[in-house]
């Protein structure tokens, strides 16, 4: 029982990060029907930023907010350089474009920095545990859960209470009609990228605190997790993305603790397989977004 509670908290810690990533991907999907496979590049850029700032003697208290700013800037730049040109293009084109950005950013880092991973110090407290009775809780998990909650509440407020949020939800609901109703797609799309940058920035802080390394492919794993979580949740649905992230985190933790020794390396493969199966039996994801194709 105690073990299960611990695993759930561990899973929530992981899942919180996934939820933030997935939400950023779902927001972009909502406004332009693009699955952003370049979302992980925000983490990559954040990772190198952290590495360089550490090398210049800054600490996490300075680095954390900087990472968010950098992630937002990167998101906006990527939108400006690549995605704005394929708005409204067929799905195939948009998918390949986002993969193109993914590979290109990766190649730029290989070329101008190095193909090797670089380490930077992780904050000491992430290994601390609190003991409550038999329960030992990782401070890090609690910090992630708290930060996720705060960020999600902030996002919720933004989406429910601001003009931008209403436009964004309207666009996610029905893009063509939203545009006819006078919602300025340019502003909403750019805003969506800013929001996805903020969410990725918060996720990056915790992802990097745990991994403590920067490399050209640092964003691959978070990107895959984010995309998978968003898919579990049904892509267009924002609350689905959050739920998908949490689900993914919990499933991973439960798998790792239950897989027989020696096969733990297959966790990601099994997760992938499960999600492929989910698609076979429920192509629309866990949460169904009603999407009527207009004819």
């Amino acid at each position, binding site marked *: 029982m105690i073990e299960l509670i611990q695993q759930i908290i561990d899973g929530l810690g992981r899942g919180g990060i996934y939820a933030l990533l997935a939400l950023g991907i779902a927001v972009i999907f909502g406004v332009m029907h693009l*699955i952003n496979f370049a979302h992980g590049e925000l983490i990559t850029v954040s990772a190198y930023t952290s590495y360089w700032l550490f090398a210049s003697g800054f600490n996490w208290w300075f680095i954390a907010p900087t990472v968010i700013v950098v992630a937002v800037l990167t998101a906006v730049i990527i939108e400006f350089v690549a995605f704005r040109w394929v708005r409204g293009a067929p799905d*195939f084109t948009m998918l390949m474009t986002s993969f193109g950005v993914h590979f290109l950013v990766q190649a730029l880092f290989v070329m101008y920095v190095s193909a090797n991973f670089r380490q930077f110090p992780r904050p000491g407290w992430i290994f601390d545990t609190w003991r409550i009775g038999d329960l030992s809780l990782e401070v890090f998990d609690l910090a992630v859960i708290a930060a996720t909650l705060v960020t999600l509440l902030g996002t919720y407020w933004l989406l429910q209470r601001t003009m931008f949020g209403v436009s964004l939800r309207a666009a996610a609901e029905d893009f063509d009609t939203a545009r006819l109703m006078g919602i300025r797609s340019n502003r909403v799309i750019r805003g969506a990228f800013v929001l996805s940058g903020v969410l990725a920035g918060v996720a990056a802080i915790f992802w990097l605190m745990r991994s403590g390394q920067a490399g050209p492919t640092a964003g691959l794993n978070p990107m895959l997790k984010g995309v998978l979580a968003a898919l579990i949740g049904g892509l267009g649905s924002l609350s689905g993305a959050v739920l998908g992230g949490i689900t993914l985190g919990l499933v991973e933790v439960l798998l790792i603790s239950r897989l027989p020794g020696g096969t733990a390396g297959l966790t990601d493969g099994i997760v992938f397989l499960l999600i492929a199966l989910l698609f076979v039996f429920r192509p629309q994801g866990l949460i169904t977004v009603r999407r009527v194709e207009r004819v």
Partner: protein
Amino acid sequence: MQTDPLRRAIAPTLGSVSLFLLLLGGSLLYSANGEASSNSLVTQMLINAVVVLGLQIYIGNTGVLSFGHIGFGAIAGYTFAICAISPERKLRQIPNAPFGLAEIDLTPLQSGMVALTLTIIVAFVIGLALSRSGARSGAVAAVVITLALLFVVHEVARNWIDLTRGGKTGLSFSPLGNATLQGKLPIYLILAGAIALARLFKETRAGRLAQAAREDDLAARVMGIDPAVQQMIALLLSVAVVSAGSALRVFELGSINPRLFFFDYTLLTLTMLIVGGRNSVAGTLVGVVIITAGSELTRNLSGMDVSGMNWLLRDGLTDIFLGGAMLGFMILRPAGLLGNWELDHWLYQRLRRAESPPAPTPIPATASRSVLQAAKVTVHFGGYQALDNAGLEATAGEVVGLIGPNGAGKTTLLNVITGLVKSDSGRVELNGAVLTGLSPYGIARSGLARTFQNFRLFSALSVRENIGVVHLMATRFRQNRTLPPVDTLVAQAGLWEHRDRRASELDYGSARRLELARAAAAGPDFLLLDEPTSGMSDHESINMIDRVRSMAELIGAGVVVIDHDLNFITGICDRVYVLDQGRIIAVGTPAEISVNPAVQAAYLGTAG
């Protein structure tokens, strides 16, 4: 239907041979200096060409983006290596191999066959999963399922040390991992076969139906095409070619490790596929040559030392080139350099005899007594009631109009009849057979064909092919009908001049007429037309009256038509239904309808 062997078989075969000879000739010319480096570059290019042709067969024809084909390549490569490496060498590398695989001793050809068989079995399972998930052009589920395959195969290859020797060293044929492929003949043969297979597949029934679904999945279904079988055929053929190419690649390299068939190779082959044009076999080969040349050039450049250029000429330039090519083409020229162009199209234009438009031979009128009935149809969208006990009835030889203000539910009723929207209650019958609950393609095969308010043509296909693929479906599923030949339909729609142009190049009026002709090609009992004159000038819409009438006569079908243009409706309809707020408020001849007070109230908003 009439077949055109010159267009469908002879010209493509000649074109494939020419492509092969061009590619081979160029390669031999390039490696004529006898240098080992240019020799191996050419060999690698030809092998990559086989793999990329394999990708083309699936991705090009179906439009489904697969990231997993290199995963199939990994399965084939490992199977080939494990079968073909000699037992004594295997004892040293993987002594604990399961299933007695360490003792197996097969020739390369036999190993290739085993690899092919195994991979195709896996592909069949993946194909079923893809089909279940509703794979269609640009589908996300397909990307995830195929990525899952790539990842799972990669992880298995890294972790099943007993079988694959893990990720560090991999398996090798010789101590140095030297090339073991003696002579290039196998490469040439497989390449020639792959080119011909890819090119000829495009002209087969399966290939053409898959392409139609690629262009517009929904329109294809509504025209009676269910692409699942065709997509499976494309997948199996494509995986067979990828397997052959992958086995060659492993054989040529003399070794295999998990990294050989993973993301890098996926990026390389996909870039090759899209740069030249994924829909075209000639384009695919052009892409392979360009990317090979570009990669080689950037690799050489990155080692150079030119003052002022050091910021650019450094390691990683090749990856920048690949990523940049992928991104640049997607933004600037998503269809690739050649688009849909094939070498044999050019050949065919030169070889064919002059064509003259077929005389409109009226089909002997079948005494058809078809009846279409929709009764008590009710539909809710959330809290909004789109249709409330609406219905209509039409008989063969009759033109029935459906009019009403915007939002009255006209298109929704058409969508219910054609199976695109499920009704909460009510039923649709055609000649006494219940259509409610059938899939859109099932309904089309039963005898209903429709057009769309905003065009849904197969835009990359020619006018003739738009009609041709639907005709292809009708010849199988509408055998009880006498179908006019494709060219007669083309001429009847007034599109003879444009017959070989792509649908996306047509002007507005021509595109409307193509939609009409395409629906007629399905050999329906009833043509359902959704605003066939919207956006047309008065003059054009008057012409459309004759066009619709003569087309319906030609195929002996009844017509149900939605339109706003009252001149058009009164000119063409025998009877008119008026729909307002989801209810039928009046029915009668156009003359009766125009003086009906309820109709005037609905249209003009006067209380009545």
